[in-house]
């Protein structure tokens, strides 16, 4: 297995606030890796920095064996990185189909249909609503659209930021099933979640973030059983 993402000694500041204090982690091809942690631990900051929306102060980010520390976000998309952002951020005034087309912005025209078919297979609900304006979708449907849209770029690495946020438990289960499915079809996944229970149950490996530091890491199944993790993140 090849290493798709390698982050070393990443330091991120918001003004004078030291948000990420030198974290290192990696993702291997074909894996589901999750970053879990409490609110404000720096999970989203880490993801947004890897995705290129936030500039890190120092450290290194290797994506697909290429230095992408100071690469622009849009170039990273071209290289095969997709970030499905926190809060979904679908284009509310555009139709479902247009949202998906935007997801394929970096792809040659001839390949868009193929990706559309693939995404609709994973999310049959989206196909029923092609012409509907995205702002009128339910929260769960918007999350599916955001994931489908990110998938349209045919990413090597899909980063998901809190996909379960604000969703009913039955939808959360559905979203996680889809994540596992995406992974089975060959997409490597880096997942940020507050719902540690769910995240650990689908992931291969996990990193625990606490106030900008990685405090624990290891096999997801083992962490799920660990007393320490249970106490801190799994409600007892």
């Amino acid at each position, binding site marked *: 297995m090849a290493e798709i993402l390698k982050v070393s000694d990443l330091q991120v500041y918001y003004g004078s606030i030291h948000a990420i204090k030198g974290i290192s982690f990696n993702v291997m091809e074909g894996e589901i890796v999750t970053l879990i942690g409490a609110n404000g631990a720096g999970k989203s900051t880490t993801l947004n920095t890897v*995705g*290129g*929306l936030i500039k890190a102060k120092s450290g290194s980010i290797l994506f697909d064996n290429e230095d992408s520390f100071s690469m622009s*976000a*849009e*170039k990273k*998309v*071209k290289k095969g990185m*997709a*970030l499905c*952002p926190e*809060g979904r*951020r*679908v*284009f*509310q*005034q*555009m139709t479902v189909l*247009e949202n998906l*087309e*935007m*997801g394929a*912005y*970096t792809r040659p025209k001839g390949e868009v249909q193929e990706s559309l078919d693939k995404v609709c297979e994973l999310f049959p609900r989206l196909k029923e609503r092609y012409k509907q304006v995205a*702002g009128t979708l339910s929260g769960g449907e918007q999350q599916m659209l955001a994931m489908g*849209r*990110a998938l349209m*770029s045919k990413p090597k690495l899909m980063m998901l930021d809190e996909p379960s946020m604000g969703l009913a438990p039955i939808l959360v289960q559905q979203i996680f099933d889809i994540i596992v499915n995406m992974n089975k079809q060959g997409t490597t996944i880096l997942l940020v979640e507050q719902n540690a229970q769910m995240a650990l149950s689908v992931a291969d490996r996990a990193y625990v973030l606490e106030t900008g530091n990685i405090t624990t890491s290891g096999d997801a199944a083992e962490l799920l059983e660990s007393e320490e993790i249970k106490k801190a993140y799994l409600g007892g």
Partner: protein
Amino acid sequence: MLGNLINGISLGSIYAIIALGYTMVYGIAKMLNFAHGDVIMVGAYIAFYSISYFGMPALPALLLSIAVCTMLGIIIEKLAYKPLRNATSLAVLITAIGVSYFLQNAALLLWTSNTKVFPNIFANIGAIKIGSVQIAPVTLVTVFANIVIMLVLTLFTSKTKMGKAMRAVSEDKGAATLMGINVDRTISLTFAIGSGLAAIAGVLLCTAYPTLMPTTGAMPGIKAFTAAVFGGIGSIPGAMLGGILLGVIEIFAKAYISTQLSDAIVFAVLIIVLIVKPSGLLGRKINEKV
């Protein structure tokens, strides 16, 4: 009555073309480009010199004017607004006013304050008579140009990849970046289109009202801005509707109420519309969904 209506639609079509520039730039960059009116003036001067001094035919002169204004729009954005991408909107607004004064004063230096008489580019085409109403060729061309521009822009933003990307950027720059869209280039393109349209508006404006001086663009600029707000800023059909209504109201106010009060009446209508419908006639209510 019919004659006034036609004049109103013609004037309104010019406002509409200018308003499109305001509204598109606002939609994408969320800023009011108060220098937009002065780009119109520059466009008119370029066409004036090309025709009157270099003897160019009207169409190449118009194309040259569009090219110059397009470049000017891109340069203004690069030099004045891009460095302020993350600044407060007030700083950008003041900068836009500064650019406006800069362009007016540069025009004053380059072309002096002497009023130029814009050539009648339709001199050898007579007025067209429909029943008892005479329609000047510039009126027809203006209305026609307006319709074509509206159609092309609507198709561009709804059918092309570039146009859809523009809408995506106007909604959420961060999310658009995550699609791989180059936001800076999209903003540049919007300025280019808006400024190119300003050149067309400038030539049409000065053909209909042939006095040209460095402040020529200021008042139509403000009126067109009003039209854009009137129709719902950020909306392309809104700019169209707002522009035409504004032109018609202005001409009717001039004809039936008072020439001196016409501007006051126009702005009073705007105030009433904004009280009743703050987002403008076709403006979208902004729903914040968390």
